């Protein structure tokens, strides 16, 4: 008779560890991108309780900025790494400007209006930006050059961790650590937290809430831009529509982590990425997107406050 211990050991022997590792890193890669984008959703929601539906478009525009920069700098003979870095800087600056302008034009005039109005405005901005890029660029998938250098030290595990994945995971981790320190220790970071917790009181302390809201859009957009550049270098193809699905996934991640919570968005992104990756690896890749939306619906029904969010009643 086989003992339970025997059954266990055959179970572990049968696990394909290489495959598992592959799925894990692929999940971490996608999850890092979701996390970067979902921070923008969660920070904006934390301060003005708006779901900025156009946020995914900022990410898409970040990727396109990188593409345009690659074309220009490539023709000038810049090396790949230079193009990658300058492209990222350009995307961050350009997307920050977009985020700033978007808030000023589409959301600020509606502040104090009914909750539905800015939401509709957000959807309008999203459609506008998609179509703008569709006309200015094209509807086709555009090839993105390979800008990522070889990383010889990854050779032993290259079957499960490509250089582009490595870059995404490391860059996102660094960016998220910097963001966390910024929010915790700087004057602006403290003012942002105060404004999120009680806007009226923040104003009574002399904090200019309008400036804080602008800063939130700028920071969120910069993070999305970094996500856009990274994913474009990873998948090496982009089109005007990539912001839609990524936006919804990142929104799911924000809800999963607890909307309004910054560590929640980071955790939610990584968890969602890994869940998706394992679902598509062990069940079927057809289920990948469906799985994400199933998570969104289940969270909304059973734990609307998310993994790290506080129940509504706690928010005074």
């Amino acid at each position, binding site marked *: 008779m086989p003992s339970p211990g025997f059954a266990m050991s055959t179970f572990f022997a049968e696990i394909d560890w290489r495959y598992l590792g592959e799925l894990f890193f692929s999940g971490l890669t996608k999850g890092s991108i979701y996390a970067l984008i979902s921070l923008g959703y969660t920070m904006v929601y934390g301060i003005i309780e708006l779901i900025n539906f156009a946020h995914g478009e900022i990410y898409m525009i970040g990727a396109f900025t990188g593409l345009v920069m690659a074309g220009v700098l490539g023709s000038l003979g810049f090396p790949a790494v230079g193009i990658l870095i300058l492209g990222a800087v350009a995307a961050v600056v350009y997307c920050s400007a977009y985020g700033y302008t978007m808030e000023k034009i589409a959301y600020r005039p509606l502040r104090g209006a009914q909750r539905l109005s800015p939401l509709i405005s957000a959807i309008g901005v999203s459609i506008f930006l998609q179509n703008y890029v569709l006309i200015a660029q094209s509807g086709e998938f555009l090839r993105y050059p390979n800008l990522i250098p070889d990383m010889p030290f990854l050779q032993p595990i290259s079957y499960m961790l490509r250089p582009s994945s490595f870059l995404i995971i490391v860059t996102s981790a660094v960016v998220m650590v910097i963001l966390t320190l910024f929010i915790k220790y700087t004057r602006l970071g403290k003012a942002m937290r105060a404004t999120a917790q009680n806007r009226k*009181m923040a104003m*009574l*302390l002399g904090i200019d809430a309008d400036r804080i809201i602008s800063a939130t859009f700028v920071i969120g957009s910069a993070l999305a831009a970094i996500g856009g550049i990274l994913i474009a270098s990873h998948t090496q193809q982009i089109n005007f529509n990539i912001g839609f699905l990524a936006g919804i996934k990142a929104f799911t991640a924000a809800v999963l982590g607890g909307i309004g919570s910054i560590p929640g968005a980071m955790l939610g992104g990584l968890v969602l990425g890994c869940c998706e990756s394992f679902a598509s690896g062990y069940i079927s890749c057809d289920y990948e997107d469906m799985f994400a939306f199933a998570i969104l619906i289940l969270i909304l029904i059973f734990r609307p406050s998310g993994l790290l969010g506080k129940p509504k009643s706690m928010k005074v």
Partner: protein
Amino acid sequence: MLELRGVCTYYGNIQALWDVDIRIDEGEIVTLVGANGAGKTTTLMSICGVTPVQRGEIFFNGQTIHTQKTDRIVRMGVSQVPEGRLIFPELTVMENLELGAYLRRDKQGIQEDLEHVFSLFPILATRSGQAGGTLSGGEQQMLAISRALMARPRLLLLDEPSLGLAPIIIHQIFNIIRKVNESGTTIFLVEQNASQALKVAHRGYVMENGHITMQDEGDKLLRNEAVRKAYLGSVD
């Protein structure tokens, strides 16, 4: 120092303040007493530019402030301890205090003031790393007052600082208010607890349904028959 002239404030179509005239001179403690819903909080929020003034004018040290944004008014030296204290619940006591000094750049002075508020309320020093939301009601009120003092205001507005607190804490808070005033800060104190407020104040105003109905020196209002009947539970 502060003057309201004919101030009218609305919430939508509903008028909350009707031609309110109030004058506060430098160095005074002035109180505004009135029943719940009289318009006291609205008066303070109008002064701070949070609730917009529809008609009338507000002057602070000769400058019009009713057209200014709140952060400009705070910068001029007006701090408020709002109704309900509005402590940032997820920030530490120390962070709450630091944000009180948000507009200041003088590190040295901020440090001095921090030591000053810790000497006024030693309990806050022992709680400095704790989240604001975990403090008791009395401690939160102390924190709210300290946070406002961290701005080194010239005029301190207090909205019902005694609300919901135990008598011994109320006593302590009113002592601090007197102390802060003696060290040179002008005070505008809004209270339902009229007897305490009128005892500590130099002058007082009585507000009913958005109108100022009486004004006099604090002890005269305290002896006034109508005020005693309406706000002090008559004879005591």
